[in-house]
């Protein structure tokens, strides 16, 4: 029963190289000087060139872009958790009513609308409303997130017994109080899932910030914008890529178990 299948372990470890090798390659390339870029490219740098990072840092305006990305991501996650769960609660508890059931399908069907259809009208609209900035982008993430998050939350809330709420209602609590005091705390696992998925989406997204933001630039955007300015300084380009990937990689390394179990939970419900 406890016999470890070493053969399979080895095979899976070998497969994991397909993930690790490109990452390793990115790291060593970012540390090299251009004249070390010969051969297989997998050799360790003979001399580490930290200045690649300084150059990329300055060229792309890294701190500003990172701050913008962080602000957008964190706000989008928090607002999504607070609002989407609330909407889902109202829908989940009234699914037998035609209005709420219709609303459920209304939100979820948006999953299938390709972004190009709405791209241009959204660009027009956000700028008309003065929302072609970080605030507008955050709002769009929260609103567009409804489609998938309602789907996740409603499934989860419906598995929470109504009797829990009734106890609170007997004590005189209104619907709002019931939600914040009873339901929201119970949603913690699903909040983790939604939070992680929203985080990854907002942090890594490219097309929406590209067309919506008129001034500010996120981390993926600056990689795109400066692609031509990197010229053939591949080592600087890789330093820049690495710096753009680093924050999420570091968070992931520390929160790995938690992230994966969050996603696992989302898929069982989904």
């Amino acid at each position: 029963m406890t016999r470890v299948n070493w053969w399979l372990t080895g095979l899976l470890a070998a497969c994991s190289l397909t993930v690790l090798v490109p990452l390793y390659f990115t790291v060593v390339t970012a540390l090299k000087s251009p004249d070390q870029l010969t051969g297989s490219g997998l050799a360790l740098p003979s001399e580490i060139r930290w200045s690649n990072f300084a150059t990329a840092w300055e060229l792309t305006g890294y701190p500003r872009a990172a701050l913008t990305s962080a602000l957008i991501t964190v706000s989008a996650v928090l607002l999504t958790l607070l609002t989407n769960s609330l909407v889902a609660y109202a829908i989940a508890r009234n699914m037998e009513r035609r209005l709420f059931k219709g609303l459920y399908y209304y939100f979820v069907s948006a999953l299938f609308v390709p972004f190009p259809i709405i791209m241009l009208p959204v660009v027009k609209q956000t700028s008309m409303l003065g929302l072609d900035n970080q605030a507008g982008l955050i709002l769009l993430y929260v609103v567009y997130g409804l489609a998938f998050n309602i789907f996740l939350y409603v499934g989860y809330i419906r598995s929470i017994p109504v009797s829990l709420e009734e106890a609170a209602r007997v004590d005189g609590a209104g619907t709002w109080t019931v939600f914040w005091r009873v339901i929201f705390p119970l949603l913690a696992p699903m909040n983790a899932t939604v939070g992680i998925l929203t985080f990854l989406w907002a942090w890594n997204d490219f097309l929406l910030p590209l067309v919506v933001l008129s001034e500010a630039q996120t981390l993926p955007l600056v990689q795109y914008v400066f692609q031509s300015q990197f010229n053939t300084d591949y080592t600087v380009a890789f330093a820049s890529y690495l710096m753009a990937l680093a924050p999420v990689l570091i968070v992931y390394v520390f929160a790995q178990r938690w992230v994966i179990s969050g996603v696992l939970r989302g898929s069982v419900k989904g």
Partner: protein
Amino acid sequence: MARSIALLVAAALFASSCGQDPGSAVTLDFFQFKPEAVKTFDRIIEEFEREHPGVRVVQRHVPNAETALRTRLVRQDVPDVLTLNGAGVFGELAAAGVFHDFSRDRVAQVVNPPVQKILNDLGTFGRGEVNGLPFASNANVVIYNKDLFARHRVEPPRSWAELIAAARTFRAAGVTPFYLTLKDAWTALPTFNALAANLAPADFFARRRAGLATFLSAYPQVTEKLKELYSHGQPDRLSRGYDEGNRAFAEGRAAMYLQGSWAIPAIKGLEPAFELGTFALPAVQDQRLVSGVDVAVTMAREPRHPKEAMAFVEYLMRPEVMKAYAEEQVAIPPLRQAGSPVLREVLPYFERGRLAGFPDHHIPLAVQLERLLQRFLIDGDSRAFLAELDSEWDKVMERRS
């Protein structure tokens, strides 16, 4: 807890939106399309700001500048001042009434009239309007490595036969004749233009629009010669792009480079000591040099800061600024005088007026000529290429009618 988080978010948003520009200076939004020229414009802006302390100019440059600009137009957010390549998109936007009319402004007088005409011919909003000012002209030239030419005793070719003979000589000596960069589809356009301007009838596009001519009947010579040139390139052409081509050429890895004057600053930037020369692609006897408006300067029809925007345009159009730019970016200032010393070899074309515009500017962008061209240069099927060019042309025209 929830409320305090919301407050935090609101505070952060507020801080970020108020974080810019404490002073009362006017900020001009300057859209600059040319990645090679970002640093040059930074310096120009610096000097302008020193002269105009109340004005701050923010240079914005993005890849696919024309797409980005169209996105901004959708937003009705026209940059105060902008540069654009004097090509199809410029004409379309000018005709749509996006740009200022300079016809009554003093600043329009400095430009050499024939060059101004090339730009106006692309499109204007009203009859007789001037919707942009030529800031720098380019020359569609073949760049060559002087050292390799001397070492293999090759003279800059003056006829097609000499060009092919030169390519053969280099090949026999193990030197790549042409460095090709087909990963970036557009890099095949300069050569296409040089050949088309000289080999196709001058009135071809008028006749094509009238339905009296086809690419299939008028362009076989163009594709044939293009194919011949591309048979003398290096094998990894498909995985090499423009930036890599500039580097490879600067490192002496090929004798010739089928580009244009705009590539020279990038090459020089990589290897300042590199000795290069230029010649016009000798497609026919007494051929014409293809030259266009590399950089056109214009401003919004309704700029947010009309006075300051005009001051910046006037500053850019000062002959000494244009000349300094041309010097640094190896362009030809569209004034009456001569241009950059690197382009000395092709200046006679300018002096004798043996110039032609870019043929591809007449082909609608929706045809996506460069993609068709790229495919042709991979599969070599000339008939299929020209037939598709014709059918795409017809389809786009039908969609527009």
